């Protein structure tokens, strides 16, 4: 940039120009509309010039950080824009000379050039000691405009309306598919079992809390889902019966207890409604990055004991995020069971109404229910397990599964002659989602292997806020879950989808 190499001027003439500048500055400041360097000029320089003309190796060896460097030896002559070369560089149409260069934003808008001209004319006031820095934000023309160009007209309008309305950026949530990828890396590195023959019962330790829970292997196989029309108490949504094939997985021997879920539910951190830490820490681990519930305003046990008892009152989403949190620290892939996996495990090879047979009078040996539970949930794992070693599949608390609840049953899901394989029924709709197994509030009919319940918006009735919490169902008090761990490790996108299929984006989705 040859024109920047200006011949030196004598110290006498510099002194003269400074004196002139002072006089001009005072005179114009008293007049109408004097230019304020810090408010009007510095932002232009910082946005359009400092990107190149600052730092240790400024382009053209020309820095605009300080007044001294910017003014150079006569580049800017206070009082006369046309004297120094600075202003000429802003207005020349010579593409080899112009500043900013054509490939770096090109000439300033006329209004900005006019401001700079007036600023020099008024004496080029630059407060003593003031140093400029690179603008913090991205460059609009080279960085933001390309993003806007990708948007539809409708989306641009929405974005504009949001910016006009104050545009508060949401708390950045690190809980993304990238997080699922990191968790998956840990899972792949940790999970040793590759084939069904290697699956055995084991005890898992939740490392952040030291709490243990047990899992039992569930062999892969085929079963008939749903109940026959002849079954007493049978509802239309339990049919038609159809064959389903299921891949092997482990399942929690018991329902998730407060001992396991409580420390996940109540964390030390302030959280946004979607569950991200409002004040994230650079040292946050993949466990810390999983979204977790905001704080409940009252104990969610509703007056029932906690130790050894099933956790309740969580949304399907909260249960899913617990599974993700668990996975991120154990290195085993946990999620909610699909509805088909749940019924397959509950039946444990049987085709009777309950896994113990067809006699409701035996319910008391296997289940906590209306007649024996004293109107509250009871300790898990006390009643007899089913044939595959699972306790409380019938009764105690109802259990969330991953599926959308088609209240008209399975007919529309069936493709004649084909066996459904590892089915998962999912839509964007949040209500109803499926709950299985019945609870302490049900009679034996409600505990049957095929009995289904759909979630309801009324389950948030006692939440006084708007939007309502995405984490709590305050109402049924019968709502729990258990985890499964599929043998096959899916890709991260699938994990992400299954851990987030119950999320309510704004709490008003119904």
């Amino acid at each position, binding site marked *: 940039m040859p024109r920047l190499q200006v011949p030196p001027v004598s110290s006498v003439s510099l002194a003269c120009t400074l004196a002139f500048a002072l006089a001009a500055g005072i005179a114009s400041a008293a007049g109408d509309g004097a230019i304020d360097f810090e408010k009007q000029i510095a932002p232009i320089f910082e946005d359009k010039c400092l990107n190149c003309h600052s730092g240790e190796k400024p382009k053209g060896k020309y820095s605009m950080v300080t007044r001294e460097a910017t003014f150079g030896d006569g580049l800017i002559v206070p009082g006369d824009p046309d004297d120094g070369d600075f202003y000429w560089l802003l207005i020349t149409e010579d593409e080899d000379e112009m500043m900013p260069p054509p490939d770096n934003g090109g000439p300033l808008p006329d209004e900005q050039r006019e401001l700079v001209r007036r600023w020099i004319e008024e004496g080029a006031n630059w407060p003593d000691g003031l140093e400029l820095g690179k603008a913090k934000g991205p460059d609009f023309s080279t960085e933001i405009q390309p993003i806007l160009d990708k948007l539809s007209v409708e989306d641009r309008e929405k974005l504009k309306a949001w910016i006009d309305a104050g545009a508060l950026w949401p708390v950045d949530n690190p809980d993304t598919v990238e997080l699922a990828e990191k968790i998956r890396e840990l899972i792949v590195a940790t999970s040793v079992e590759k084939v069904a023959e290697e699956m055995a019962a084991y005890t898992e330790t939740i490392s952040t809390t030291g709490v243990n829970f047990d899992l039992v292997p569930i062999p892969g196989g085929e079963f008939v889902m749903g109940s026959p029309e002849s079954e007493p108490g049978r509802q239309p949504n339990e049919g038609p019966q159809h064959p389903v094939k299921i891949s092997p997985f482990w399942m929690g021997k018991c329902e998730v207890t407060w001992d396991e879920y409580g420390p996940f539910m109540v964390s030390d951190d302030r959280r946004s409604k979607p569950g991200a830490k409002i004040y994230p820490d650079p040292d946050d681990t993949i466990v810390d990055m999983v979204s977790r519930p905001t704080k409940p305003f009252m104990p969610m046990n509703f007056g029932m004991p906690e130790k050894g008892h099933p956790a309740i009152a969580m949304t399907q989403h909260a249960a899913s995020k617990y599974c993700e949190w668990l996975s991120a620290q154990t290195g085993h892939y946990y999620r909610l069971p699909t509805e088909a996996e749940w019924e397959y495990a509950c039946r444990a090879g049987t085709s009777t109404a309950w896994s113990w047979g067809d006699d409701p009078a035996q319910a008391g040996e296997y289940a906590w229910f209306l007649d024996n539970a004293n109107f509250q949930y009871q300790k898990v794992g006390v009643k007899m397990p089913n044939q595959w070693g699972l306790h409380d599949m019938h009764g105690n608390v109802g259990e969330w599964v991953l599926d959308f609840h088609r209240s008209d049953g399975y007919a529309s899901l069936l493709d004649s002659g084909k066996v459904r394989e590892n089915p998962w029924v999912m839509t964007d709709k949040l209500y109803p989602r499926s709950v299985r197994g019945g609870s302490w509030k049900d009679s034996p009919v409600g505990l049957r292997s095929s009995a289904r319940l759909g979630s309801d918006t009324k389950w948030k009735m006692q939440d006084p*806020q708007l939007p309502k919490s995405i984490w709590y169902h305050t109402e049924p008090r019968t709502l729990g879950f258990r985890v499964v761990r599929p043998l096959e490790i899916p890709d991260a996108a699938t994990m992400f989808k299954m851990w987030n299929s119950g999320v309510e984006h704004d709490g008003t989705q119904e």
Partner: protein
Amino acid sequence: MNPPSKSPSKPAVDSRRDFLKKSSAATIAGAAASSLVFPTISRAEPFQGTIRVGLIGCGGRGSGAAAQALSADDNVQLAAVADVFEGQLEGSLANLRKKFGEKVTVGDGEKFLGLDAYQKVLDSNVDMVILTTPPGFRPMMLEAAIKAGKHVFCEKPVAVDAPGVRSVLQSAQSAKSKGLSLVCGFCWRYHDARREFFNRIHAGEIGEIQSMFSTYYTGPVKPMPPASRRPEGMADVAWQIKNWYNFGWLSGDSLAEQAVHSVDKIAWAMKDIDPVSAVATGGRQIPANGGNIYDHFHVIYEFPNKVLCHLGSRQQRGTYGENNDYIHGTKGTGTIANGCVIKSESGNWVDGPELQTDMYQAEHNHLFKSIREGGAVNDGEWMAHSTMLAIMGRMAAYTGQKITWEEALNSTHDLAPDDLKWDSEFTPDEMALPGRTKFV
């Protein structure tokens, strides 16, 4: 849902007289209060046409209350809103618009920001206001709302100190004489199962109450972030309001802000009569990060005839959680745990599913019915009474002294001046130290 047919609480007349007499509200109110009881206006003018609602405090609860207001009556509009945080205000409006569409008529000229925004809502053409800011502002805003002739829904607690309670009493009295409706958010008083439970207690099913124990053991609600998280240039007042729960002058402390629901059930059980005194322990074990509230209390309220009512509260993560009430009477017991149960000589009673109603909606149905019919419902006295009971417990814990009801009610300790500005420097009281912190 049927709205409650009458005011959910009927304090005993004697206690009401005492309450007013003992508080300096009577003297402050001057001539109007010479009778010591509220002027009896049974009916105000019925109200036809559109009820225009102003929302002051657009947080989650405020937005929820606005949703309940908009659901309580067919001809109601949300007409003006106020908050100190623009993002919160806009977020609230967006959610309400999504749910209620044209019932939300707020235009740019009816959105008000700042600590004085409430007055702008009151100056706008609204008929009823929802007061859901942090409780420290409640007395000032309630006074202004009643002065401006607005019907009011205000959240609990209604004050954070005794001067605030006295102000609220005056405002409530003024509301009554103006025929304005005033309903507060002590929500359990509008829950059908609880109402039936306490009706049975009051009817003597368990005899005379001998003692009561209420628990409010939970985790922390809105923990204080470390000082390093404070944005550069944010003044004390703004930072404290952003973290309002952690400052007594804004929240009243965990006892008055959260456990006050249990305190209110004690008051309810005792028919809202005045206690004699309170003794309490309390303190803080989890780092306060610059906040000044306790994280646990145990208060023993002494009522006439040595009836002792205990309240245990705690907000510490990983501890035993419980929110129950145990009432012992001469003829039986009443328990609120997972449902309401009465066991007595004459038989047992358990609340049924038909009594599990939406109390938040019921509050507003009750209020709007009153506005429509000119019923001038007024929760003022008992809402101030329950709030004062919580403040009294806090005073006893903070000072480590036995505090009488009369002392508590006439305390001159004002936790913060009313004229704070958003950018004011303000150092609140230091964390109280029992035995050293003086009763004022």
